[in-house]
């Protein structure tokens, strides 16, 4: 219950930032498809997911061979 209340308060506290960000984004910042940082971040996360997937897949494959 305590954690639920803390998360709820944090969520409500974040809401003004979301709307402020929307407004800010409309006027000053480049759109996300024009932003090289967004593209770089997406590629980095994709790389991390791919690496984690390859490690997990390799581990499962080895485990299956050791304990068929």
């Amino acid at each position: 219950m305590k954690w639920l209340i803390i998360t709820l308060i944090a969520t409500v506290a974040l809401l003004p930032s979301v709307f402020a960000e929307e407004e800010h984004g409309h006027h000053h910042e480049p759109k996300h498809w024009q932003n090289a940082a967004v593209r770089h971040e997406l590629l980095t996360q994709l790389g991390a997911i791919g690496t984690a997937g390859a490690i997990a897949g390799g581990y499962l494959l080895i485990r299956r061979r050791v304990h068929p």
Partner: protein
Amino acid sequence: MPRAFFALVRLSFLEAVRRQVLHVMVLLSLVVIAVAGTVSFFDLGVQVKIVKDTGMVMILLAGSLSAVFLLSGALFHDVEQRLLYPVLARPIPRGLYLVARYFGALGAVYLGMTLMSVTLIALLWVHLHYLSTLAIVAVAFTYLEVALVAALTLLISTFFTPAMTATLTLFLYLLGSLKMGYLHHLAERNSGFTKWAITAVSAVLPNIEAFRFKDALVHDLTVPANYLILVAVYGACYTAMCVALSIWRFQRREV
């Protein structure tokens, strides 16, 4: 095995379609989209922008909230009501059950979203007299965003109670939407452990903002095709990762 999977998907879909929260969300959104498209206070250019803006927001809002509310309690309910045991007593892997639960609920959400999307595209056709390709692309990425939110909800629901799952998912959803504009600036302004913690959280969170092409649709902007492919691959991989982690967690959980 495929027969069992499709039977479970069908059951999950039928259960989700009967939930009142989905009916309310879809009806409310349809009314808002229809009102925005038919009640005219402005000239045609402004009216079309309002239809696009309202339509996209309502599809996203109704889809995301329905996915969170349908999936946050699904697993907990099955365990509490002991509906899970007769299924797991058969030779059905837990992972298959979880994936079927996910696709069933997502199918119900997509059904509602399709009703809203068809209404939006029809209204745009009435105003513009042509089929907006960008509207279809923007709606398709909203579907992908909702699939990601649903997968995130499924993952969190394997750890927590429904209330905590719904709140935590919405919290992470907001953080993911603020990632580029807020969290990165916040990390730059801080130093030491705070900076490290914000950067670590930011690195794990999905970039929700990347799926939103409402601005491109409203202001008739062009989005590069290679960026669209990147976001589509990113969305599919992140969703698959969340589902895989859910299966991993659910297989180890005591039910």
